[in-house]
């Protein structure tokens, strides 16, 4: 059976997911959460780092639920390519490009000056292009220097934007969380309103019902019951209309 699936996996256009996805059943996930909680209780004083707690001596079916340690040397391979765990953006100096701006303040600072630099660079782009066109109209062979300038400005611009990426990612996260919060609150509110409405109906019914329980016990006539039933349906209609 296993071999068969292996063969069909080899023949498939898209590879099947790795087989260990089957280990992620709700029961297994619950169990490893319990084990982790137990471990956390034991080693509360020692481990204060933010990494997920590693449980030793796992039963075999839970082994896949524990993420492996990140590679110690900080390098990993994927499809024959070598990648680094932390890949800092190379600075402009490292890339051999002249830095055209004074670097904006430390990452903890505000980013308003960054926008200012970007705007200046954008204006420089246009100006340099104008100069380039001017030079080309006089002597097309003199273009290299100006094109180099343009290139430097473009690279600087993109570099500045790429540096801004993590900031933007956090900002998007904040927006998404805000969204989720709003949705959750709206849902709760909707449920509450519905509940109140239903409770209102029930109360109305209760009033209509009171005489029913009294009277039916006394004479138990069908006509009376029908009457009360009608009252309830009237009440319902009134609520929903």
């Amino acid at each position: 059976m296993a071999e068969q699936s292996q063969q069909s996996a080899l023949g498939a256009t898209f590879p099947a997911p790795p087989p260990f996805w089957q280990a992620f059943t709700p029961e297994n996930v619950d169990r490893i959460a319990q084990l982790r909680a137990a471990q956390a209780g034991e080693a509360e004083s020692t481990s204060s780092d933010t990494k997920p707690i590693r449980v030793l001596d796992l039963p075999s079916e839970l082994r896949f639920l524990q993420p492996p340690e990140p590679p110690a040397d900080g390098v990993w391979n994927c499809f024959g390519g070598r990648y680094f765990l932390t890949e800092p953006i190379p600075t402009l100096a490292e890339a051999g490009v002249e830095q055209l701006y004074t670097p904006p303040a430390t990452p903890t600072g505000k980013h308003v000056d960054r926008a200012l630099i970007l705007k200046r660079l954008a204006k420089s782009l246009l100006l340099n292009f104008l100069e380039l066109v001017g030079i080309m109209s006089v002597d097309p062979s003199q273009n290299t220097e100006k094109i180099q300038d343009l290139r430097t400005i473009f690279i600087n611009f993109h570099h500045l934007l790429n540096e801004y990426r993590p900031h933007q990612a956090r900002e998007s996260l904040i927006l998404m969380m805000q969204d989720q919060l709003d949705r959750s609150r709206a849902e709760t509110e909707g449920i509450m309103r519905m509940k109140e409405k239903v409770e209102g109906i029930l109360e109305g019914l209760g009033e209509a019902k009171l005489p029913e329980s009294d009277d039916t016990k006394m004479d138990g006539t069908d006509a009376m019951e029908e009457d009360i039933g009608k009252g309830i349906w009237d009440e319902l209609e009134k609520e929903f209309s």
Partner: protein
Amino acid sequence: MADKLTQLQDAVDQLAHQFVASLWYVHKHHDLKKLNEADKILEDKKENEIPDVDKLDPYPEADFKAGQLELARDLIVKEQQIEYLISVLPGLENSEKDQEQLIRQLEEELKEAEVRRQQAVKEKEVVLAKLESVIRSVKRP
């Protein structure tokens, strides 16, 4: 839709493309000038035929000028777009510390809201059950 940073990067790349396209337009569609009355504009002969892409394709002067004007205007518009995008980049006034604080706070609020929602769902179910039992006990007239 892509986020603003990506839009900005795209816009910058488009600006670069427009630079190239503008130069190409001028290069390809300019008219030929006679420096001297006696000059003659030579027709390309068959033997030194140049490939189509390099061939000059002069436009009438009015068309050429109009094209130039449009390209120039587009360049300015693109630059304005870039500046606008820069000014609306998200979170320019937030520092990293602010963001972290905000994220933590939102996380707390989310948890709280989730608890409240769960509670509301439970209450709703109780009320629903009550309503159902009442409806069942009622005979249709």
